[in-house]
């Protein structure tokens, strides 16, 4: 067996009183993939930082992290960076936050390429290669875009391209596939497999158990900062020994769509008529979208990354001004932008942003921000609003103590749940949910679905669910729309979609999803290939 290139001993991370990581020991060898799974808030992201000898502000590290024999924690910032340069790289959980909003993505990629390739031609080649590896179309127009001109999934893949372009020996991937559609997801998995096969060591921090099963040479289960189980290959994922691991596996959703009894279709509350939107350069992002959201009913939108799902959601919520068509709430036509909508309209149409971290003010406690919705939109007095917020968060499995911290003190999944709670507190008629499960572990996910189910049935909320996760869709949705290139191309029940997809895209996506959820055989102690 080869020597580990990265190893941690007794690694510990604390934020004041809180212990975020405790006594972590691990080894990483070239050409292997280490999967770290665990519930939301278990400390995966923190571990990802710590393995590079870094920590977010306010968090202190102790213990040992050795990279090629160099003890990282003893070095100064500059030395550490020197030691890491070209050796490790990372794909963060929230790619939007790490893309420079003022620089075109091509420029930054090229800058990173110069680290490896002094010559211009080689750099161009490397940029193109990295984009292709990350499953992005390396057309010049894309390279000239700013990060905000990309969809969430595209941003994630740009960040991935950035992480890969320096050809590092170690790549730490924090939820690498959350923004990707099922097809891209499986392509990405292939690509990562390939990468490991060519000798790169991977650290995979994820909730996506099928992905972990597919890639892992070693698996760790993290719970509240401790390693509760570890094993070679994917053993912990097939034969979990620890109660926590079993809990996780038990909650893993399966891709079944019960044909169910066809529910009665209520009259729509929200209707989009001929909605269209163009980018500033004139490229059509949405064309002639006709959509209805019904009370107590969940409509899901699926489609390849970059299809225009977020754009549609934003147009409905009044965050992007549509160029054509109109949005009707009941009989009333909604103003094109949320600023122009009266409060009552804003209350009725709520939107949960794809990027949960960006949607919170870093300076105020999360709980207050959640409670504001009830306070402002339903005129609930402050005290009661806070109580309601606490309750709503508890329903989603969140501890009120955590919620009293600022957003920087919460994990990605925690923030995502807080964002949903914030939207629900408005008691909306329509809740638009843009990728709300991407950072959730399977247990939280089912808690969240229960809460949404409850909202659907008791509050009669109509839900528009945008997701790449067919399991989630099959569980929650009453109808599914397939979006492609800015158009809704197919509508069906989840059962129909999974069983008899009509369009090519649908077939491809479903096939990829099925393959993904098919548990591969257990792999034991793998030989580095």
């Amino acid at each position: 067996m080869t020597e580990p290139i990265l190893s941690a001993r007794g690694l510990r991370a604390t934020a004041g009183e809180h212990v975020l990581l405790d006594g972590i020991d691990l080894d990483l060898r070239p050409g292997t993939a280490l999967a770290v799974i665990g519930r939301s808030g278990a400390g995966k992201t923190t571990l990802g930082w710590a393995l590079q000898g870094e920590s977010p502000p306010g968090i202190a590290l102790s213990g040992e992290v050795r990279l090629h024999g160099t003890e990282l924690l003893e070095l100064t910032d500059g030395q550490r960076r020197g030691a890491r340069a070209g050796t490790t790289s990372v794909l963060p959980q929230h790619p939007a936050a790490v893309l420079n909003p003022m620089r075109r993505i091509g420029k930054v990629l090229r800058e990173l390429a110069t680290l490896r390739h002094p010559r211009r031609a080689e750099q161009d080649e490397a940029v193109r290669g990295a984009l292709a590896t990350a499953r992005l179309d390396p057309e010049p127009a894309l390279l000239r875009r700013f990060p905000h001109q990309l969809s969430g999934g595209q941003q994630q893949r740009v960040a991935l391209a950035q992480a890969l372009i320096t050809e590092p020996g170690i790549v730490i991937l924090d939820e690498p596939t959350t923004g990707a559609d099922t097809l891209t997801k499986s392509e990405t998995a292939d690509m990562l497999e390939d990468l490991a096969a060519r000798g790169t060591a991977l650290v995979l921090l994820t909730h996506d158990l099928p992905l972990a099963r597919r890639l892992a040479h070693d698996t760790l289960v993290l719970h509240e900062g401790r390693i509760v189980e570890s094993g070679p290959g994917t053993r912990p994922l097939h034969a979990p020994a620890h109660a926590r691991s079993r809990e996780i596996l038990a909650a893993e959703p399966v891709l079944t769509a019960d044909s169910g009894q066809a529910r009665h279709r209520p009259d729509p509350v929200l209707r989009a008529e001929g909605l269209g939107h163009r980018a500033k350069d004139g490229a059509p992002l949405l064309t002639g979208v006709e959509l209805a959201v019904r009370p107590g009913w969940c409509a899901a939108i699926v489609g390849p990354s970059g299809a225009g799902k977020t754009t549609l959601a934003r147009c409905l919520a009044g965050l992007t001004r549509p160029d054509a068509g109109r949005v009707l709430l009941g009989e009333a036509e909604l103003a094109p932008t949320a600023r122009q909508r009266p409060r009552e309209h804003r209350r009725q149409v709520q939107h949960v942003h794809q990027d949960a971290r960006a949607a919170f003010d870093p300076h105020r406690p999360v709980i207050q921000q959640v409670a504001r919705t009830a306070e402002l939109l339903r005129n609930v007095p402050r005290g009661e609003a806070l109580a309601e917020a606490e309750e709503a968060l508890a329903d989603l499995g969140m501890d009120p103590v955590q919620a009293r911290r600022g957003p920087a003190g919460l994990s990605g999944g925690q923030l995502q749940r807080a964002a949903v709670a914030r939207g629900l507190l408005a008691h909306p008629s329509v809740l638009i949910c843009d990728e709300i499960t991407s950072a959730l572990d399977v247990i939280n996910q089912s808690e969240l679905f229960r809460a949404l189910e409850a909202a659907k049935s008791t509050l009669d909320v109509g839900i528009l669910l945008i997701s790449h996760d067919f399991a989630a869709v099959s569980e929650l949705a009453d109808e599914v729309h397939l979006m492609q290139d800015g158009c809704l191309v197919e509508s069906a029940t989840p059962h129909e979609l999974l069983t008899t997809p009509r369009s090519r895209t649908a077939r491809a996506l479903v096939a990829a999803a099925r393959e993904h959820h098919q548990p591969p055989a257990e792999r034991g102690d793998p030989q580095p290939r």
Partner: protein
Amino acid sequence: MKRVRAVIAWLLVGIPLGVAVLGPVLAGSTRSEAGPLMPPDGAHPLGTDVLGRDVLALVLTGGRTVVLLTGVALLLAYLVSVPIGLVLAGQSRRWVEETALHGLDVLLALPGLLVLLVLAATGRQGAVGLVAAVVVLQLPAIVRLTRSAAIAPGCRTVVESMVLQGEPWWRIHLLHTGRAVLGPVAVDAGSRLILVLQLMASANFLGLGLASSASDWAVLVERNREALFLQPLAVLVPAFLLVALCIGINVAIDRTVARREVVST
């Protein structure tokens, strides 16, 4: 070490402010009773100025107006301009923003000297007139700065969430964004303080604001400028107090801004 630094910073602000507040109580007469520009002696520990006044007494009495007038002028200027800047940055109607900005550019292009001269010549000479003029002259620059600092924070995702949450417009664009621009604005205030101090001092010599014989530090410095090499104390002591005040305030601003930075990240 940290303690020492903090002490130095506070001394820099504290000495001038202390002199400004307590000085008038301790000061002797500021009449001209001796020869002009006398070097220090027993009766006049810091010598005399061009008008034969005791520099020590002048310095002791001269801080109050500096602190008051510049303080009031700066405060007013920011109270008026920052909200305007924020409102402009938060405008969804482009034309309102553009019109206002271009209108302010006119004010910006208007030669300040001409405005001051006209005020002086048309009899609006009191301190109120001067403060008003200073506010008006500083307004466009502050508005532009605030606006440009507020644009980026004003289009962050969190703003969209706040809109959907029904946060009133002013809370988003005045409080939330306002908080984000505090850094640049505070820094601007630090350097503008110096600008305003000097603007006011020179305005006095155009016949605006204080009398040119007032025992105001800034006025003293101007008044005694030709004595820089004859009786340096008459210039250097008030100038030192002013410089200390400026450095002190800027250091204080830096410390607070830095603290905010650490908290926010």
